[in-house]
C-alpha cells in the first residue's frame, strides 16, 4: 500500500496543475497496463474529515480541518507486486517532486496474522461466526 501525504494545496482543495494531473494519469495508466494497480484514490481535504477519540467508555467526535496535514494521508494506492523492490521500482517512476516523501507499506497477510492470535481469541472468532451463521438461518 502506498501513502501520499497531504500539503497546503490538497488541504485548500486546490487541484494540482494540469501537467501534473496528466503525468499522474499516465503513471496510473502504466500501473494498470502492467496489472499492478488494484485500487487507488485521492482523498478530500481534512476540512471534510472527522475524528473519533476513544477514552474509557467515552467517544468524542472532533471535526476537521486538522493542522498536521503533512502527516495525514491525502491519497493512496493498493498495488499487487512480487516484492518490496518491485514496489520501490514502480514508485521511483511516479511524477512527484519538491521533497515530498511517499511511504510504501506491505499489507499484513490475514492468514499470517491469524497464526499470531492466541487459540482462545481464534476460538472466540469461530464462535462469533457460527453464531452469525445461525442467526441468518433462523
Amino acid at each position, binding site marked *: 500500500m502506498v501513502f501520499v501525504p497531504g500539503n497546503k494545496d490538497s488541504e485548500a482543495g486546490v487541484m494540482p496543475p494540469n501537467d501534473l494531473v496528466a503525468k499522474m494519469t499516465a503513471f496510473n495508466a502504466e500501473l*494498470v497496463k*502492467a*496489472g499492478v494497480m488494484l485500487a487507488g484514490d485521492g482523498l478530500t481535504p481534512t476540512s471534510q474529515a472527522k475524528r473519533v477519540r476513544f477514552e474509557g467508555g467515552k467517544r468524542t467526535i472532533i471535526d476537521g480541518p486538522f493542522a498536521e496535514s503533512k502527516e495525514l494521508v491525502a491519497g493512496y494506492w493498493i498495488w499487487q507486486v*512480487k516484492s518490496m523492490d518491485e514496489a*520501490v521500482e514502480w514508485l521511483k517512476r511516479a511524477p512527484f517532486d519538491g521533497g515530498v516523501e511517499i511511504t510504501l507499506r506491505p499489507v499484513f*497477510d*490475514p492468514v499470517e496474522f491469524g497464526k499470531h492470535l492466541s487459540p482462545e481469541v481464534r476460538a472466540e472468532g469461530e464462535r462469533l*461466526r457460527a453464531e452469525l*451463521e445461525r442467526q*441468518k438461518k433462523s
Partner: protein
Amino acid sequence: VIEAAATRAAVDAVWRIESARLIGGLVRIVRDVGLAEDLAQGALVTAIERWPETGIPDNPGAWLMTTAKNRAIDQLRRRKLDERARGEIEDVPAAVFDLEAAIDDDVGDDLLRLMLVACHPVLSSEARVALTLRLLGGLTIDEIARAFLTPSTTIQQRIVRAKRTLTEARVPFDVPRGEELAQRLSSVLEAIYLIFNEGYAATQGDDWTRPELCEEALRLGRILAQLAAEDPEVHALVALMEIQSSRLRARVGLSGEPILLLDQDRSLWDQLLVHRGLAALARAESLKQPLGPYALQAAIAGCHARARTATETDWQRIVALYDALVEMTQSPVVELNRAVAVSMAFGPAAALELVDALLGEPALASYHLLPSVRGDLLAKLGRLEEARRELERAAKLTKNDRERALLLARARACDAQKPS
C-alpha cells in the same frame, strides 16, 4: 557486499517490470523469439555488471532497450560483414537504419504479439505455460521449475524446444484481428488459466495452493485485458481469477489443510478482489451475450461471491449456468461440477443419478474428484459403507498430499457415523 545485493535486487525488480516489453520490442525487430530473448538476457547481464558501479539509470527500461538494440545492430553488422566477405550482400547502413526506425513502435502491440507467439497453437500446453512465464512473467528457469515442481533442466529443455518449434514452424509475428484474434486469444487464455489453476489447487506436492502462481496468472490476465479490451472472454477469465483469488486465504486452514468452499470463513474473502471480479464480469457480460465458457464460469463464481453465507447461495441459478456450460463444452468434468450444484439445489439423489451416468466416462477414469463427489453424495444418502470406499478410492487417486489427508479424514468420518 550489502550494496551489491541491494543493486541486484533492484536489477531484478527492473527486469520484472521491463523484460516483457523489452523482449516484445526485440521480437518485432528481429522476428525470432530465441534471438530476442538472448539479446534481452545479454542486456540484463550487462546491467548486472555495470549498475553496481554506475548506479541504476533514471530510465532503466530505455537503457536496457538501447543496450539490447546495440547488441542486435552489432550482431547484424557482423553477419552482414560475413555475408559481404562471401560476396553475398552490399548495404549494411540501410539494414541498420531500418532497425533504428523499427524500435519506437506501439508497445501494446509488442506485448500482445509476444503473448500470442508464446501461446501459439503449434506448442504443447506445457510449452506455452513455460514460455509465457519466462517471456511475459520475467520468471527465471529456477522459479518456473520450483512453481511446477519440475527439475530446472526439464524446464530449460522445454523452453529451448518451444523456441525451436516456433522458428521451424515459421510462426508469423503479425497481430491478427477479428475472429482470428479471438481464436488465438483463446489459446493464451488457456495457458493463463492453467498457470492459475496450478496455483489454486496444486496437482502435486505438499502445498494445497501456491498463491504466487495465482498472482502471476492474474497479472498476465490483467495485462491482457488492457491489450485486448474488446474481447469478452479475456475480461471473463480475469473476473473468474479475481473472484477465485479472493478466496485463497480462506481456502487453507492454519495447519495447511484445504477448506472447501461451503466451509470457508467468508469474512476472510478479499472484498477488493471480489469487487474487481464482479466489475470484470459485468464488463464481459456487456460485451457479449450469450455468455462464453469463461463468462459462465465467472458468473458461477460470482453467485458464490455474492452469497454472504453458504446457505444464501443461489443454487438454482448456478445449475442453470452449468446447464449452459455443459452444452457448450461437452466436458465430463463440467458435468461432474453440475452434479454438485444439482445436489445443493435439488438434493443428493438427483445428483447421484447424474454422477452414476459419468462412471463409464474414460476421461474421468483416474480423476479423483469423481469418487470424491460420489462418496459425498452416498454419505448424504446414508449409504456410508459405499461412501467410505469411494472416498478412499479418491484418496488413492489424488497426487496432492493435503487433499489426500482430507479425503481420508472424510472416509473415517463415514465409519464414525455408522450405527454400531
